[in-house]
Protein backbone atom coordinates (compact mmCIF):
# COMPACT_ATOMS: atom_id res chain seq x y z
CA UNK A 1 0.00 0.00 0.00
CA UNK A 2 2.74 2.41 0.91
CA UNK A 3 4.77 1.60 -2.19
CA UNK A 4 1.78 2.45 -4.40
CA UNK A 5 1.33 5.69 -2.54
CA UNK A 6 5.02 6.51 -2.82
CA UNK A 7 5.03 5.97 -6.57
CA UNK A 8 1.87 8.03 -6.97
CA UNK A 9 3.30 10.89 -4.99
CA UNK A 10 6.63 10.73 -6.77
CA UNK A 11 5.01 10.81 -10.19
CA UNK A 12 2.97 13.84 -9.15
CA UNK A 13 6.16 15.59 -8.12
CA UNK A 14 7.99 14.62 -11.30
CA UNK A 15 5.13 16.22 -13.18
CA UNK A 16 5.75 19.39 -11.20
CA UNK A 17 9.45 19.39 -12.11
CA UNK A 18 8.59 18.73 -15.74
CA UNK A 19 6.03 21.54 -15.87
CA UNK A 20 8.37 24.02 -14.21
CA UNK A 21 11.26 23.35 -16.55
CA UNK A 22 9.13 22.99 -19.65
CA UNK A 23 7.33 26.19 -18.74
CA UNK A 24 10.73 27.83 -18.48
CA UNK A 25 11.74 26.74 -21.94
CA UNK A 26 8.41 27.89 -23.35
CA UNK A 27 9.06 31.31 -21.83
CA UNK A 28 12.38 31.26 -23.61
CA UNK A 29 10.53 30.90 -26.91
CA UNK A 30 8.29 33.81 -25.98
CA UNK A 31 11.15 36.29 -25.95
CA UNK A 32 10.72 38.45 -29.00
CA UNK A 33 14.44 38.41 -29.74
CA UNK A 34 16.56 35.37 -30.40
CA UNK A 35 18.38 34.44 -27.20
CA UNK A 36 21.55 34.07 -29.18
CA UNK A 37 21.32 37.75 -29.99
CA UNK A 38 21.08 38.59 -26.32
CA UNK A 39 23.83 36.25 -25.29
CA UNK A 40 26.21 37.42 -27.99
CA UNK A 41 25.38 41.11 -28.41
CA UNK A 42 28.59 41.78 -30.30
CA UNK A 43 28.92 38.50 -32.15
CA UNK A 44 28.66 38.01 -35.89
CA UNK A 45 25.58 36.30 -37.45
CA UNK A 46 27.66 33.16 -38.00
CA UNK A 47 28.71 32.99 -34.38
CA UNK A 48 25.11 33.48 -33.36
CA UNK A 49 23.91 30.72 -35.66
CA UNK A 50 26.51 28.42 -34.21
CA UNK A 51 25.38 29.24 -30.69
CA UNK A 52 21.72 28.77 -31.61
CA UNK A 53 22.57 25.31 -32.88
CA UNK A 54 24.72 24.52 -29.86
CA UNK A 55 21.95 25.41 -27.43
CA UNK A 56 19.43 23.58 -29.54
CA UNK A 57 17.20 26.54 -30.26
CA UNK A 58 16.95 25.55 -33.92
CA UNK A 59 15.08 22.37 -33.04
CA UNK A 60 11.77 23.93 -32.02
CA UNK A 61 10.41 24.05 -28.48
CA UNK A 62 10.24 20.30 -27.92
CA UNK A 63 13.54 19.46 -29.52
CA UNK A 64 15.18 22.19 -27.50
CA UNK A 65 13.63 20.92 -24.30
CA UNK A 66 14.71 17.33 -24.94
CA UNK A 67 18.26 18.47 -25.59
CA UNK A 68 18.30 20.66 -22.49
CA UNK A 69 16.86 17.87 -20.37
CA UNK A 70 19.33 15.24 -21.54
CA UNK A 71 22.20 17.59 -20.73
CA UNK A 72 20.64 18.67 -17.45
CA UNK A 73 20.33 15.13 -16.11
CA UNK A 74 23.97 14.56 -16.99
CA UNK A 75 24.96 17.55 -14.86
CA UNK A 76 25.56 19.95 -17.73
CA UNK A 77 23.60 23.03 -16.74
CA UNK A 78 24.69 25.13 -19.70
CA UNK A 79 27.00 28.09 -19.82
CA UNK A 80 26.95 31.71 -18.86
CA UNK A 81 28.10 33.97 -21.67
CA UNK A 82 29.80 37.30 -21.31
CA UNK A 83 31.76 39.47 -23.61
CA UNK A 84 34.83 37.56 -24.52
CA UNK A 85 34.00 34.18 -23.03
CA UNK A 86 31.76 31.77 -21.24
CA UNK A 87 31.67 29.85 -17.96
CA UNK A 88 29.88 26.65 -17.05
CA UNK A 89 26.94 27.17 -14.67
CA UNK A 90 28.00 24.03 -12.79
CA UNK A 91 31.40 25.44 -11.97
CA UNK A 92 29.78 28.57 -10.54
CA UNK A 93 27.35 26.45 -8.55
CA UNK A 94 30.23 24.61 -6.90
CA UNK A 95 31.02 27.92 -5.23
CA UNK A 96 27.49 29.24 -4.75
CA UNK A 97 25.65 26.14 -3.60
CA UNK A 98 27.47 25.48 -0.29
CA UNK A 99 26.91 29.11 0.68
CA UNK A 100 23.17 28.84 0.17
CA UNK A 101 23.06 25.49 1.87
CA UNK A 102 24.74 26.77 5.04
CA UNK A 103 22.62 29.89 5.01
CA UNK A 104 19.46 27.80 4.76
CA UNK A 105 20.51 25.29 7.38
CA UNK A 106 21.48 27.88 9.99
CA UNK A 107 18.34 29.87 9.29
CA UNK A 108 16.10 26.84 9.72
CA UNK A 109 17.86 25.66 12.87
CA UNK A 110 17.65 29.08 14.49
CA UNK A 111 14.05 29.60 13.39
CA UNK A 112 12.81 26.18 14.44
CA UNK A 113 14.60 26.16 17.78
CA UNK A 114 13.23 29.56 18.71
CA UNK A 115 9.76 28.84 17.35
CA UNK A 116 9.40 25.53 19.18
CA UNK A 117 10.41 27.08 22.49
CA UNK A 118 8.23 30.15 22.04
CA UNK A 119 5.30 28.33 20.46
CA UNK A 120 5.01 25.66 23.14
CA UNK A 121 5.45 28.17 25.93
CA UNK A 122 2.90 30.65 24.64
CA UNK A 123 0.37 27.90 23.93
CA UNK A 124 0.83 26.63 27.49
CA UNK A 125 0.33 30.14 28.85
CA UNK A 126 -2.37 31.07 26.36
CA UNK A 127 -4.15 34.27 27.21
CA UNK A 128 -1.63 35.13 29.92
CA UNK A 129 0.80 38.01 29.79
CA UNK A 130 3.77 36.00 28.46
CA UNK A 131 1.68 34.72 25.57
CA UNK A 132 0.39 38.17 24.72
CA UNK A 133 3.86 39.73 24.75
CA UNK A 134 5.36 36.95 22.62
CA UNK A 135 2.47 37.04 20.16
CA UNK A 136 2.48 40.80 19.72
CA UNK A 137 6.24 41.17 19.37
CA UNK A 138 6.37 38.34 16.86
CA UNK A 139 3.43 39.77 15.00
CA UNK A 140 5.28 43.03 14.43
CA UNK A 141 8.41 41.17 13.33
CA UNK A 142 6.46 38.99 10.95
CA UNK A 143 5.31 42.12 9.14
CA UNK A 144 8.74 43.67 8.70
CA UNK A 145 10.40 42.41 5.55
CA UNK A 146 13.72 40.62 5.92
CA UNK A 147 15.59 43.16 3.84
CA UNK A 148 14.50 45.96 6.16
CA UNK A 149 15.89 44.04 9.13
CA UNK A 150 19.04 43.34 7.13
CA UNK A 151 19.56 47.00 6.26
CA UNK A 152 19.00 48.13 9.83
CA UNK A 153 21.42 45.46 11.11
CA UNK A 154 24.00 46.53 8.57
CA UNK A 155 23.62 50.14 9.64
CA UNK A 156 23.76 49.56 13.39
CA UNK A 157 25.92 46.50 13.93
CA UNK A 158 28.04 46.69 10.82
CA UNK A 159 28.54 50.38 10.15
CA UNK A 160 28.02 52.13 13.48
CA UNK A 161 29.27 49.54 15.97
CA UNK A 162 31.55 47.74 13.55
CA UNK A 163 31.04 44.45 15.39
CA UNK A 164 30.48 42.27 12.39
CA UNK A 165 31.57 42.41 8.77
CA UNK A 166 28.77 43.57 6.48
CA UNK A 167 29.87 41.85 3.30
CA UNK A 168 31.22 38.63 1.92
CA UNK A 169 31.24 34.97 2.90
CA UNK A 170 33.97 32.90 4.49
CA UNK A 171 34.09 29.10 4.31
CA UNK A 172 34.85 26.87 7.28
CA UNK A 173 38.38 26.50 6.07
CA UNK A 174 38.94 30.17 6.84
CA UNK A 175 38.23 29.52 10.50
CA UNK A 176 35.05 28.66 12.33
CA UNK A 177 34.61 32.10 13.86
CA UNK A 178 35.29 33.79 10.54
CA UNK A 179 32.62 31.59 8.99
CA UNK A 180 30.03 32.38 11.61
CA UNK A 181 30.90 36.07 11.79
CA UNK A 182 29.82 36.40 8.19
CA UNK A 183 26.71 34.34 8.71
CA UNK A 184 25.17 35.93 11.80
CA UNK A 185 23.52 38.92 10.18
CA UNK A 186 22.17 37.18 7.05
CA UNK A 187 20.83 34.33 9.15
CA UNK A 188 19.20 36.74 11.59
CA UNK A 189 17.59 38.73 8.79
CA UNK A 190 16.18 35.58 7.22
CA UNK A 191 15.09 33.89 10.42
CA UNK A 192 13.25 36.68 12.24
CA UNK A 193 10.28 36.49 9.91
CA UNK A 194 10.38 32.70 9.96
CA UNK A 195 10.46 32.57 13.76
CA UNK A 196 7.34 34.67 13.78
CA UNK A 197 5.43 32.59 11.27
CA UNK A 198 6.58 29.23 12.67
CA UNK A 199 5.66 30.27 16.19
CA UNK A 200 2.21 31.32 15.09
CA UNK A 201 1.65 27.97 13.36
CA UNK A 202 2.86 25.91 16.29
CA UNK A 203 1.02 28.00 18.86
CA UNK A 204 -2.29 27.68 17.02
CA UNK A 205 -1.93 23.92 16.62
CA UNK A 206 -0.76 23.45 20.19
CA UNK A 207 -3.73 25.40 21.53
CA UNK A 208 -6.08 23.21 19.50
CA UNK A 209 -4.31 20.06 20.68
CA UNK A 210 -4.38 21.12 24.31
CA UNK A 211 -8.18 21.28 24.06
CA UNK A 212 -8.40 17.69 22.85
CA UNK A 213 -9.85 14.97 25.02
CA UNK A 214 -6.63 12.99 24.94
CA UNK A 215 -4.86 15.80 26.75
CA UNK A 216 -7.55 15.77 29.45
CA UNK A 217 -7.13 12.02 29.45
CA UNK A 218 -3.37 12.39 29.95
CA UNK A 219 -4.02 14.83 32.79
CA UNK A 220 -6.43 12.35 34.36
CA UNK A 221 -3.62 9.80 34.40
CA UNK A 222 -1.77 12.10 36.79
CA UNK A 223 1.03 13.16 34.44
CA UNK A 224 2.99 16.36 34.96
CA UNK A 225 2.34 19.37 32.74
CA UNK A 226 5.82 19.17 31.29
CA UNK A 227 5.28 15.56 30.23
CA UNK A 228 1.86 16.34 28.81
CA UNK A 229 3.23 19.25 26.79
CA UNK A 230 6.22 17.49 25.30
CA UNK A 231 5.21 13.85 25.16
CA UNK A 232 1.53 14.16 24.39
CA UNK A 233 0.85 17.53 22.81
CA UNK A 234 3.94 18.57 20.89
CA UNK A 235 4.19 15.76 18.38
CA UNK A 236 0.62 15.81 17.09
CA UNK A 237 0.80 19.62 16.90
CA UNK A 238 4.01 19.84 14.93
CA UNK A 239 2.84 18.55 11.56
CA UNK A 240 1.97 21.93 10.07
CA UNK A 241 5.17 23.42 11.45
CA UNK A 242 7.46 20.86 9.88
CA UNK A 243 5.52 20.81 6.61
CA UNK A 244 5.83 24.53 6.24
CA UNK A 245 9.51 24.47 7.26
CA UNK A 246 10.25 21.88 4.60
CA UNK A 247 8.40 23.84 1.95
CA UNK A 248 10.57 26.85 2.74
CA UNK A 249 13.75 24.96 1.93
CA UNK A 250 13.57 25.53 -1.81
CA UNK A 251 12.76 29.19 -1.30
CA UNK A 252 15.67 29.68 1.08
CA UNK A 253 18.09 27.95 -1.28
CA UNK A 254 17.20 29.91 -4.36
CA UNK A 255 14.99 32.75 -3.19
CA UNK A 256 17.11 34.57 -0.63
CA UNK A 257 18.11 36.89 -3.46
CA UNK A 258 17.82 40.20 -1.67
CA UNK A 259 19.62 39.08 1.48
CA UNK A 260 22.39 37.45 -0.55
CA UNK A 261 22.75 40.68 -2.48
CA UNK A 262 22.79 42.93 0.58
CA UNK A 263 25.42 40.86 2.38
CA UNK A 264 27.27 39.86 -0.80
CA UNK A 265 26.91 36.22 0.21
CA UNK A 266 26.53 35.31 -3.47
CA UNK A 267 24.78 31.98 -3.20
CA UNK A 268 22.33 30.32 -5.55
CA UNK A 269 19.82 33.16 -5.19
CA UNK A 270 22.37 35.63 -6.42
CA UNK A 271 23.22 33.34 -9.32
CA UNK A 272 19.55 33.33 -10.26
CA UNK A 273 19.46 37.09 -10.09
CA UNK A 274 22.64 37.38 -12.13
CA UNK A 275 21.24 35.01 -14.73
CA UNK A 276 18.06 37.06 -14.99
CA UNK A 277 19.67 40.46 -15.14
CA UNK A 278 22.33 39.20 -17.55
CA UNK A 279 19.59 37.60 -19.68
CA UNK A 280 21.30 34.22 -19.32
CA UNK A 281 18.09 32.35 -20.01
CA UNK A 282 19.59 28.91 -20.41
CA UNK A 283 21.41 29.19 -17.12
CA UNK A 284 18.18 30.52 -15.56
CA UNK A 285 16.25 27.52 -16.80
CA UNK A 286 18.75 25.14 -15.24
CA UNK A 287 18.79 27.04 -11.96
CA UNK A 288 15.00 27.15 -11.71
CA UNK A 289 14.96 23.45 -12.55
CA UNK A 290 17.40 22.78 -9.71
CA UNK A 291 15.40 24.85 -7.25
CA UNK A 292 12.18 23.06 -8.13
CA UNK A 293 13.95 19.74 -7.66
CA UNK A 294 14.89 20.92 -4.20
CA UNK A 295 11.31 21.88 -3.51
CA UNK A 296 10.11 18.49 -4.69
CA UNK A 297 12.74 16.49 -2.81
CA UNK A 298 11.91 18.24 0.45
CA UNK A 299 8.24 17.69 -0.30
CA UNK A 300 8.83 13.95 -0.43
CA UNK A 301 11.00 13.99 2.68
CA UNK A 302 8.45 15.95 4.66
CA UNK A 303 5.70 13.63 3.53
CA UNK A 304 7.47 10.71 5.09
CA UNK A 305 8.56 12.72 8.09
CA UNK A 306 4.92 13.63 8.67
CA UNK A 307 4.02 9.97 8.41
CA UNK A 308 6.50 9.34 11.18
CA UNK A 309 5.34 12.22 13.35
CA UNK A 310 1.64 11.51 12.86
CA UNK A 311 0.93 7.86 12.04
CA UNK A 312 -2.71 8.64 11.21
CA UNK A 313 -1.66 10.22 7.92
CA UNK A 314 -0.06 6.97 6.76
CA UNK A 315 -3.45 5.42 6.25
CA UNK A 316 -5.48 8.54 5.70
CA UNK A 317 -3.67 9.37 2.51
CA UNK A 318 -4.32 5.89 1.23
CA UNK A 319 -7.99 6.54 1.73
CA UNK A 320 -8.03 9.78 -0.22
Amino acid at each position, binding site marked *: *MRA*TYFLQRLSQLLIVIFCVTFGCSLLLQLIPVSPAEILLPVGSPEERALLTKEIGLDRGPIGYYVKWLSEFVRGDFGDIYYSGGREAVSSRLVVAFPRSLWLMLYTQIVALAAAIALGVWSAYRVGRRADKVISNVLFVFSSIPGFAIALVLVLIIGVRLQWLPTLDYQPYSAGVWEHFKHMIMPVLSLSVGLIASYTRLLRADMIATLREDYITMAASKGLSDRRILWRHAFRPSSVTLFTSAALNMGGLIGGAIVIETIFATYGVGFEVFAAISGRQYIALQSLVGLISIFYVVFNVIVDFAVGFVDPRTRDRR*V*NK
Partner: protein
Amino acid sequence: MAGSGYAHLRDSDDVVLALRDIVVEFRVGGGRVVNAVSRISIDVRRGETLAIVGESGCGKTTLGKAILQLPAPNTGQVMFEGTDLTKLPKEQLRSARTAIQMVFQDPISSLDPRMTVGEIVGEPLWIWGRGSEADREAKVRELLNNVGLDPELVLHRRSYEFSGGQCQRISIARSLALEPRMLICDEPVSALDVSIQAQILNLLQDMKDRYGLTMVFISHDLAVVKAVSNRIMVMYLGKICEVGSPDAIYSKPAHHYTSALLDSVPVPDPAYQRNNVALQGEPPSPVAPPTGCRFRTRCPAASPLCAAEEPLLREVAPDQFVACHHPRL
Protein backbone atom coordinates in the same frame (compact mmCIF):
# COMPACT_ATOMS: atom_id res chain seq x y z
CA MET B 1 -27.57 -16.39 -9.25
CA ALA B 2 -26.41 -15.16 -5.91
CA GLY B 3 -27.99 -12.02 -4.60
CA SER B 4 -30.19 -10.93 -1.84
CA GLY B 5 -33.27 -12.36 -3.51
CA TYR B 6 -36.54 -10.89 -4.67
CA ALA B 7 -39.08 -12.82 -2.61
CA HIS B 8 -39.93 -9.76 -0.56
CA LEU B 9 -40.77 -7.59 -3.57
CA ARG B 10 -44.43 -6.86 -4.08
CA ASP B 11 -46.05 -6.68 -7.41
CA SER B 12 -48.78 -4.12 -7.06
CA ASP B 13 -49.83 -0.89 -8.69
CA ASP B 14 -49.21 1.31 -5.71
CA VAL B 15 -45.46 0.65 -5.56
CA VAL B 16 -43.97 4.14 -5.86
CA LEU B 17 -40.32 3.34 -5.51
CA ALA B 18 -38.67 0.12 -6.56
CA LEU B 19 -34.95 -0.47 -6.16
CA ARG B 20 -33.49 -3.36 -8.10
CA ASP B 21 -30.04 -4.85 -7.47
CA ILE B 22 -28.52 -1.61 -6.26
CA VAL B 23 -24.73 -1.72 -5.95
CA VAL B 24 -22.72 1.19 -4.61
CA GLU B 25 -18.97 0.89 -4.35
CA PHE B 26 -16.38 3.39 -3.26
CA ARG B 27 -12.85 3.30 -4.45
CA VAL B 28 -10.34 3.79 -1.68
CA GLY B 29 -6.60 4.10 -2.13
CA GLY B 30 -4.47 1.20 -3.21
CA GLY B 31 -7.08 -0.16 -5.58
CA ARG B 32 -9.29 -1.34 -2.74
CA VAL B 33 -13.05 -1.15 -3.11
CA VAL B 34 -15.59 -0.72 -0.35
CA ASN B 35 -18.85 -2.54 -1.01
CA ALA B 36 -21.11 -0.04 0.69
CA VAL B 37 -24.30 -1.47 -0.78
CA SER B 38 -24.31 -4.77 -2.61
CA ARG B 39 -27.27 -5.88 -4.71
CA ILE B 40 -30.14 -4.59 -2.70
CA SER B 41 -33.71 -4.72 -3.97
CA ILE B 42 -36.66 -3.23 -2.12
CA ASP B 43 -39.91 -1.52 -2.90
CA VAL B 44 -42.04 1.11 -1.17
CA ARG B 45 -45.79 1.52 -1.55
CA ARG B 46 -47.59 4.81 -1.74
CA GLY B 47 -48.17 6.24 1.74
CA GLU B 48 -45.93 3.68 3.37
CA THR B 49 -42.96 4.42 5.64
CA LEU B 50 -40.06 2.10 5.00
CA ALA B 51 -37.45 2.13 7.74
CA ILE B 52 -33.89 1.13 6.94
CA VAL B 53 -32.15 0.03 10.13
CA GLY B 54 -28.58 -0.96 10.76
CA GLU B 55 -25.39 -0.06 12.59
CA SER B 56 -22.82 2.42 11.31
CA GLY B 57 -21.15 1.27 8.12
CA CYS B 58 -23.99 -1.01 7.00
CA GLY B 59 -24.67 1.18 3.94
CA LYS B 60 -28.06 2.56 4.94
CA THR B 61 -27.22 6.21 4.30
CA THR B 62 -25.47 5.38 1.04
CA LEU B 63 -28.55 3.50 -0.10
CA GLY B 64 -30.78 6.44 0.82
CA LYS B 65 -28.63 8.85 -1.14
CA ALA B 66 -28.44 6.44 -4.09
CA ILE B 67 -32.20 6.85 -4.52
CA LEU B 68 -31.60 10.53 -5.25
CA GLN B 69 -28.55 9.70 -7.40
CA LEU B 70 -26.26 11.49 -4.92
CA PRO B 71 -24.14 9.74 -6.05
CA ALA B 72 -25.80 7.40 -8.51
CA PRO B 73 -25.44 3.66 -7.80
CA ASN B 74 -22.78 1.78 -9.77
CA THR B 75 -25.34 -0.67 -11.10
CA GLY B 76 -29.02 -1.31 -10.52
CA GLN B 77 -32.33 0.39 -11.19
CA VAL B 78 -34.08 3.08 -9.20
CA MET B 79 -37.66 3.02 -10.50
CA PHE B 80 -39.60 6.00 -9.18
CA GLU B 81 -43.20 6.14 -10.38
CA GLY B 82 -42.25 4.07 -13.38
CA THR B 83 -39.15 5.99 -14.50
CA ASP B 84 -35.65 4.70 -13.99
CA LEU B 85 -33.77 7.59 -12.38
CA THR B 86 -30.38 6.07 -13.18
CA LYS B 87 -31.08 6.40 -16.91
CA LEU B 88 -32.35 9.98 -16.91
CA PRO B 89 -30.27 12.71 -18.57
CA LYS B 90 -28.98 15.45 -16.29
CA GLU B 91 -31.73 18.02 -16.92
CA GLN B 92 -34.58 15.55 -16.50
CA LEU B 93 -33.00 14.14 -13.37
CA ARG B 94 -32.84 17.65 -11.98
CA SER B 95 -36.58 18.06 -12.27
CA ALA B 96 -37.31 14.46 -11.25
CA ARG B 97 -35.49 15.06 -7.99
CA THR B 98 -38.05 17.61 -6.90
CA ALA B 99 -40.53 14.81 -6.25
CA ILE B 100 -38.14 13.19 -3.75
CA GLN B 101 -36.69 15.32 -1.00
CA MET B 102 -34.32 14.59 1.82
CA VAL B 103 -33.93 15.51 5.50
CA PHE B 104 -30.38 15.15 6.78
CA GLN B 105 -28.84 13.97 10.00
CA ASP B 106 -26.84 17.02 10.97
CA PRO B 107 -29.33 19.86 11.34
CA ILE B 108 -26.56 22.45 11.44
CA SER B 109 -24.50 21.30 8.49
CA SER B 110 -27.58 21.00 6.32
CA LEU B 111 -28.43 24.72 6.51
CA ASP B 112 -26.29 27.39 4.90
CA PRO B 113 -25.11 29.63 7.77
CA ARG B 114 -25.09 32.73 5.62
CA MET B 115 -28.73 32.61 4.58
CA THR B 116 -31.79 33.67 6.51
CA VAL B 117 -34.43 31.12 7.34
CA GLY B 118 -36.74 32.74 4.80
CA GLU B 119 -34.14 32.35 2.06
CA ILE B 120 -33.40 28.76 3.03
CA VAL B 121 -37.01 27.62 3.02
CA GLY B 122 -37.83 29.66 -0.08
CA GLU B 123 -34.80 28.49 -2.02
CA PRO B 124 -36.42 25.46 -3.69
CA LEU B 125 -39.22 27.72 -4.89
CA TRP B 126 -36.71 30.22 -6.18
CA ILE B 127 -34.80 27.53 -8.06
CA TRP B 128 -37.89 26.44 -9.90
CA GLY B 129 -39.33 29.91 -10.24
CA ARG B 130 -42.58 28.89 -8.57
CA GLY B 131 -44.93 31.83 -8.24
CA SER B 132 -44.18 35.50 -7.72
CA GLU B 133 -42.04 36.84 -4.92
CA ALA B 134 -45.16 37.47 -2.83
CA ASP B 135 -46.52 33.98 -3.52
CA ARG B 136 -43.26 32.50 -2.46
CA GLU B 137 -43.16 34.44 0.76
CA ALA B 138 -46.72 33.40 1.59
CA LYS B 139 -45.79 29.80 0.93
CA VAL B 140 -42.69 30.04 3.14
CA ARG B 141 -44.80 31.46 5.96
CA GLU B 142 -47.29 28.64 5.59
CA LEU B 143 -44.52 26.03 5.65
CA LEU B 144 -42.90 27.53 8.74
CA ASN B 145 -46.27 27.59 10.46
CA ASN B 146 -46.83 23.97 9.60
CA VAL B 147 -43.55 22.86 11.14
CA GLY B 148 -44.35 24.75 14.32
CA LEU B 149 -42.22 27.85 13.90
CA ASP B 150 -43.52 31.40 14.13
CA PRO B 151 -42.71 33.00 10.75
CA GLU B 152 -42.60 36.50 12.25
CA LEU B 153 -39.87 35.46 14.66
CA VAL B 154 -37.72 33.27 12.47
CA LEU B 155 -38.00 34.54 8.91
CA HIS B 156 -35.08 36.95 9.05
CA ARG B 157 -32.78 35.11 11.42
CA ARG B 158 -29.93 32.81 10.44
CA SER B 159 -29.57 29.14 11.21
CA TYR B 160 -26.81 29.46 13.81
CA GLU B 161 -29.19 31.35 16.08
CA PHE B 162 -31.32 28.23 16.44
CA SER B 163 -31.06 25.02 18.43
CA GLY B 164 -30.68 21.63 16.77
CA GLY B 165 -34.37 20.83 17.02
CA GLN B 166 -35.41 24.12 15.45
CA CYS B 167 -32.85 23.69 12.66
CA GLN B 168 -34.36 20.30 11.94
CA ARG B 169 -37.81 21.94 11.70
CA ILE B 170 -36.42 24.46 9.22
CA SER B 171 -34.85 21.64 7.27
CA ILE B 172 -38.17 19.79 7.14
CA ALA B 173 -39.97 22.94 6.00
CA ARG B 174 -37.46 23.33 3.19
CA SER B 175 -37.84 19.73 2.11
CA LEU B 176 -41.61 20.18 1.85
CA ALA B 177 -41.51 23.40 -0.15
CA LEU B 178 -41.65 21.67 -3.51
CA GLU B 179 -44.50 19.44 -2.34
CA PRO B 180 -42.58 16.24 -2.92
CA ARG B 181 -44.29 12.88 -3.02
CA MET B 182 -41.51 11.12 -1.19
CA LEU B 183 -39.35 12.14 1.76
CA ILE B 184 -36.08 10.43 2.63
CA CYS B 185 -35.12 11.03 6.26
CA ASP B 186 -31.51 10.20 7.02
CA GLU B 187 -31.14 9.81 10.80
CA PRO B 188 -33.24 12.94 11.33
CA VAL B 189 -33.25 12.76 15.13
CA SER B 190 -29.97 11.12 16.10
CA ALA B 191 -28.19 14.43 16.63
CA LEU B 192 -30.95 15.73 18.89
CA ASP B 193 -31.55 15.60 22.61
CA VAL B 194 -33.99 13.03 23.89
CA SER B 195 -36.67 15.55 24.80
CA ILE B 196 -36.48 17.08 21.32
CA GLN B 197 -36.41 13.78 19.40
CA ALA B 198 -40.04 13.03 20.14
CA GLN B 199 -41.13 16.46 18.91
CA ILE B 200 -39.44 15.96 15.55
CA LEU B 201 -40.68 12.39 15.15
CA ASN B 202 -44.25 13.53 15.78
CA LEU B 203 -43.79 16.43 13.38
CA LEU B 204 -42.61 14.09 10.63
CA GLN B 205 -45.63 11.92 11.28
CA ASP B 206 -47.95 14.96 11.01
CA MET B 207 -46.30 16.17 7.83
CA LYS B 208 -46.61 12.74 6.32
CA ASP B 209 -50.36 12.78 6.92
CA ARG B 210 -50.86 16.37 5.83
CA TYR B 211 -48.87 16.12 2.59
CA GLY B 212 -49.66 12.47 1.82
CA LEU B 213 -46.00 11.54 1.75
CA THR B 214 -44.31 8.23 1.19
CA MET B 215 -41.28 7.99 3.48
CA VAL B 216 -37.96 6.23 3.68
CA PHE B 217 -36.70 6.55 7.22
CA ILE B 218 -33.06 5.70 7.87
CA SER B 219 -31.96 5.14 11.45
CA HIS B 220 -29.67 3.14 13.69
CA ASP B 221 -32.17 3.32 16.53
CA LEU B 222 -34.65 0.44 16.60
CA ALA B 223 -36.87 2.17 19.12
CA VAL B 224 -37.19 5.31 17.01
CA VAL B 225 -37.95 3.21 13.94
CA LYS B 226 -40.70 1.32 15.68
CA ALA B 227 -42.50 4.55 16.42
CA VAL B 228 -42.69 5.71 12.81
CA SER B 229 -42.57 2.87 10.30
CA ASN B 230 -44.92 0.44 8.53
CA ARG B 231 -42.23 -1.78 7.14
CA ILE B 232 -38.68 -2.39 8.28
CA MET B 233 -35.60 -3.47 6.44
CA VAL B 234 -32.63 -4.53 8.57
CA MET B 235 -29.23 -4.14 6.91
CA TYR B 236 -25.82 -5.55 7.76
CA LEU B 237 -22.64 -4.87 5.78
CA GLY B 238 -24.41 -3.75 2.62
CA LYS B 239 -26.95 -6.60 2.55
CA ILE B 240 -30.53 -7.09 3.66
CA CYS B 241 -30.99 -9.37 6.68
CA GLU B 242 -34.67 -9.16 7.21
CA VAL B 243 -37.72 -7.34 5.85
CA GLY B 244 -41.13 -7.20 7.44
CA SER B 245 -43.73 -5.34 9.43
CA PRO B 246 -42.54 -3.79 12.71
CA ASP B 247 -44.83 -5.85 14.87
CA ALA B 248 -43.62 -9.10 13.33
CA ILE B 249 -39.97 -8.19 13.47
CA TYR B 250 -40.02 -6.81 17.01
CA SER B 251 -42.04 -9.61 18.51
CA LYS B 252 -40.41 -12.56 16.76
CA PRO B 253 -37.30 -11.61 14.83
CA ALA B 254 -36.28 -14.32 12.39
CA HIS B 255 -32.71 -13.24 11.74
CA HIS B 256 -30.11 -13.75 14.47
CA TYR B 257 -28.75 -10.28 13.82
CA THR B 258 -32.14 -8.63 14.26
CA SER B 259 -32.64 -10.50 17.46
CA ALA B 260 -29.20 -9.48 18.74
CA LEU B 261 -29.91 -5.86 17.87
CA LEU B 262 -33.16 -5.93 19.76
CA ASP B 263 -31.49 -7.49 22.77
CA SER B 264 -28.81 -4.83 22.87
CA VAL B 265 -31.17 -1.86 23.12
CA PRO B 266 -31.01 -0.51 26.67
CA VAL B 267 -34.43 -0.52 28.29
CA PRO B 268 -35.34 2.21 30.78
CA ASP B 269 -36.61 -0.21 33.37
CA PRO B 270 -34.32 -1.45 36.16
CA ALA B 271 -36.34 -4.66 36.52
CA TYR B 272 -35.92 -5.65 32.87
CA GLN B 273 -33.94 -8.86 32.32
CA ARG B 274 -32.14 -9.64 29.07
CA ASN B 275 -32.91 -13.06 27.70
CA ASN B 276 -29.83 -13.58 25.53
CA VAL B 277 -26.11 -13.03 25.81
CA ALA B 278 -24.82 -9.97 24.01
CA LEU B 279 -23.45 -10.27 20.51
CA GLN B 280 -19.68 -10.68 20.45
CA GLY B 281 -17.18 -8.79 18.29
CA GLU B 282 -17.72 -6.02 15.78
CA PRO B 283 -18.66 -5.92 12.09
CA PRO B 284 -15.82 -6.91 9.73
CA SER B 285 -14.40 -4.47 7.21
CA PRO B 286 -16.61 -3.74 4.18
CA VAL B 287 -13.47 -3.88 2.03
CA ALA B 288 -13.23 -7.65 2.47
CA PRO B 289 -16.64 -8.89 3.60
CA PRO B 290 -17.00 -12.56 4.63
CA THR B 291 -18.08 -15.02 1.97
CA GLY B 292 -21.58 -16.43 1.96
CA CYS B 293 -23.68 -14.87 4.70
CA ARG B 294 -21.97 -11.70 5.83
CA PHE B 295 -23.14 -12.06 9.41
CA ARG B 296 -21.76 -15.57 9.89
CA THR B 297 -18.55 -14.39 11.67
CA ARG B 298 -20.62 -13.15 14.61
CA CYS B 299 -23.65 -15.43 14.31
CA PRO B 300 -24.41 -17.89 17.11
CA ALA B 301 -26.04 -20.30 14.61
CA ALA B 302 -23.40 -20.23 11.88
CA SER B 303 -22.72 -23.49 10.03
CA PRO B 304 -20.41 -24.45 7.13
CA LEU B 305 -23.29 -23.82 4.77
CA CYS B 306 -23.32 -20.14 5.76
CA ALA B 307 -19.73 -19.69 4.56
CA ALA B 308 -20.33 -21.55 1.32
CA GLU B 309 -23.57 -20.09 0.14
CA GLU B 310 -25.21 -16.73 0.41
CA PRO B 311 -28.73 -17.02 1.85
CA LEU B 312 -31.55 -15.54 -0.26
CA LEU B 313 -34.51 -13.72 1.19
CA ARG B 314 -37.47 -16.01 1.76
CA GLU B 315 -40.80 -15.72 3.50
CA VAL B 316 -40.87 -17.24 6.98
CA ALA B 317 -44.15 -15.76 8.12
CA PRO B 318 -46.79 -13.68 6.38
CA ASP B 319 -45.03 -10.51 5.21
CA GLN B 320 -41.80 -11.38 7.01
CA PHE B 321 -38.81 -12.23 4.88
CA VAL B 322 -35.38 -13.27 6.07
CA ALA B 323 -32.04 -13.99 4.43
CA CYS B 324 -30.76 -16.76 6.67
CA HIS B 325 -30.03 -20.46 6.29
CA HIS B 326 -31.01 -21.15 9.89
CA PRO B 327 -33.74 -18.67 10.78
CA ARG B 328 -35.06 -18.43 14.31
CA LEU B 329 -38.57 -19.16 13.09
